[in-house]
């Protein structure tokens, strides 16, 4: 993983870069926004972590410039200013996610991973989480090299959950996803499908959680 970190507060930049390097990531640090567009052209980054409050051009202006040069790189904005206005401005300006300081390092790293994963899924047909892999073209799932037998509905549900890894997917979205199901389909039918799917995929080091009253969440089993 190769990250460009744009943060003018040196202690924070150092802490974050150190934490990333400790996980075997490559992290480049810049204290200003101006050189970022040309840096992105020179190096192949997986994600950009961009502070909004920068000297010179601020994070929002930097974001505008890199989007203007046609980059679709995942961008996570950091803000210490008022979360409310910055979030609106950041997401409207083309950021993929935002975090308000002070954040937990685990949260930052998880968000970067999720952004990169989603970005890569858009480019490849192979979805993966822990030892679980899903080939979207062939509609086949594997744990390691061992194939997992899935029904057509389970395939649709798993693919969607993998795309939304780490996010709660509301029940209604599954009803809309599965052919022949609608809002009238009982929650019990969905729960039955999920418990069968859970038994098949959880040996692959993933966890499929039921969020009571809301929906389902797929995450690596190591998380909590």
């Amino acid at each position, binding site marked *: 993983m190769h990250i460009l970190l744009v943060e003018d*507060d040196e*202690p*924070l930049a150092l*802490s*974050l870069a*150190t*934490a990333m390097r*400790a996980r075997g990531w490559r992290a480049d640090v810049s204290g200003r926004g101006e050189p970022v567009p040309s840096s992105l052209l020179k190096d192949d980054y997986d994600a950009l972590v961009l502070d909004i409050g920068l000297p010179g051009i601020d994070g929002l202006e930097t974001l505008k410039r890199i989007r203007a040069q046609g980059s679709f790189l995942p961008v996570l904005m950091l803000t*210490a*200013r*008022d*979360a*409310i206005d910055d*979030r609106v401005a950041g997401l409207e300006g083309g950021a993929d996610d935002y975090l*308000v*300081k*002070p*954040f*937990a*390092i*685990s949260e930052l790293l998880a968000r970067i991973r999720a952004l990169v994963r989603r970005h890569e899924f858009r480019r490849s047909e192979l979805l993966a989480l822990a030892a679980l892999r899903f080939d979207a073209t062939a509609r086949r799932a594997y744990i390691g090299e061992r194939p997992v037998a899935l029904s057509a509905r389970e395939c649709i549900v798993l693919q969607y959950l993998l795309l939304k890894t780490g*996010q*709660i997917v*509301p029940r209604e979205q599954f009803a809309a996803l599965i052919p022949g199901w609608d809002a009238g389909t009982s929650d019990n039918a969905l729960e039955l499908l999920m418990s069968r799917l859970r038994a098949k995929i959880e040996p692959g080091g993933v966890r499929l*959680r039921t*969020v*009571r*009253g*809301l929906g389902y*969440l797929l995450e690596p089993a190591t*998380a*909590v």
Partner: protein
Amino acid sequence: MTDSADAGASSLRRVLLVWLLVPLVALVPLTALLVYTLALRPALDALDRALTDTAVALAQIVEVDQGDPVRVSLPLSEQTAKALRADLIDETVFAVGDPQRHLLAGHSELLALAPVVPAGQWRFFDAALEGRPVHAAAHGHPCGGSEQVCTIVVAETLGKQDAAKRAALLGALVGAAAIALPLVGLATLAVGRALRPLRRAAADVESLTPQRLEPVDAHGVPREIAGFVHALNGLLARLRLAASAQRAFVSDAAHQLRTPLAVMRVEAAEALAAQHSPDVHASLERLHAAAERGSRLAQQLLTLARAEGMTVAPTLALQSLDLKSLAAAVADRWLKPSLEAGQDLGFDLEPAPVKGYAPLLEELLGNLIHNAIEHAGHGARVTVRTRSSAGCALLSVEDDGPGVAQEEIEQLWQRFRRGRDARGSGSGLGLAIVADIARLHGASTTLAPGESGRGLRVLVSFPLALPG
């Protein structure tokens, strides 16, 4: 407050009314008396003239025989006497006496009552004749020689005079009332109107709160009071400035704290995760917990400053929101901390449309869930509910933890106040923030035991937003 102030202090209204109405009450009877006197005089003069006319007619009939001695007679026929006495209302009586005051004709008692009148002159007098009051005119009629004066008296009862007096009195009273009553009414009205801006300004000041220190409207306030209102507005402006400076300070301080706090959180977490000597493990854990707590506190202070700032001067537009989707959006952020606390965070969501500020409402719900994480304990079941019912959009967070003693419940809304048996590292700001944000949205908040009688349920009741 206003009642006790009224008791001892002078009332502007009372002073004005006393100074206007007391002279009015004194002057009106005097005016009425004057009008009565002025109106009565010509009427009485006319009545006197009628008496003198009769007396003059009688004088024409007196015959004087210039012999020696002079003889005076009154050849008055019965018809003439009747004609002279004729009157529709009053009874008229006359008497004519010769120079020796011997009765020539008429009423002898009347003649006796008449004063001595010099020749050619008139005297008017009131008397009682046969027990009845009369008004009379006496005339000295020259007859014969220089010293010879006949007395002619004409009297009539007081019917016309009484009628004239009654008419004059009625006129005076009606006139006085016609002036006095509108004046009293107008004075009361004028005082009321003049003091109304003062009452309005007082009501404006009464409605001010520390969060809402708007200037009092000086428009239409009289000059005399405007000075006072301007001075008050000056004071309010200085208070507003001080309040916003304080909020800005809290907000800036929290902002400035964020970046160093971020470093502390990152470094503490990294140090804990890295290889370290067992001696420092406990220290690192305390450091990590303190960094987490400081971070949360900075966020809460910011939210408080924000909510208070919004009350004074809204910087965001109200949005049409559904508490259901808001809760679903917040779920992502809070599921993990809840799982880490070993709790079962669940949802029971039905549509509940409101008008509000999404970021603040997310903060409100986040504080309620965080509260449950902090206080409901390991293994607790926490449920977020949204409903609409009877004109209200309801949001509640319920847990089946140890709950809070009934007598402590109300105190929990105060800042930095925590339950006696509170666990965890809460600042005691969470519920105060919930209350502030709820107040900003016109919502009411209730703290009560959960449905099963266990745990704690915080219910926030918003006014339901009408569709469209």
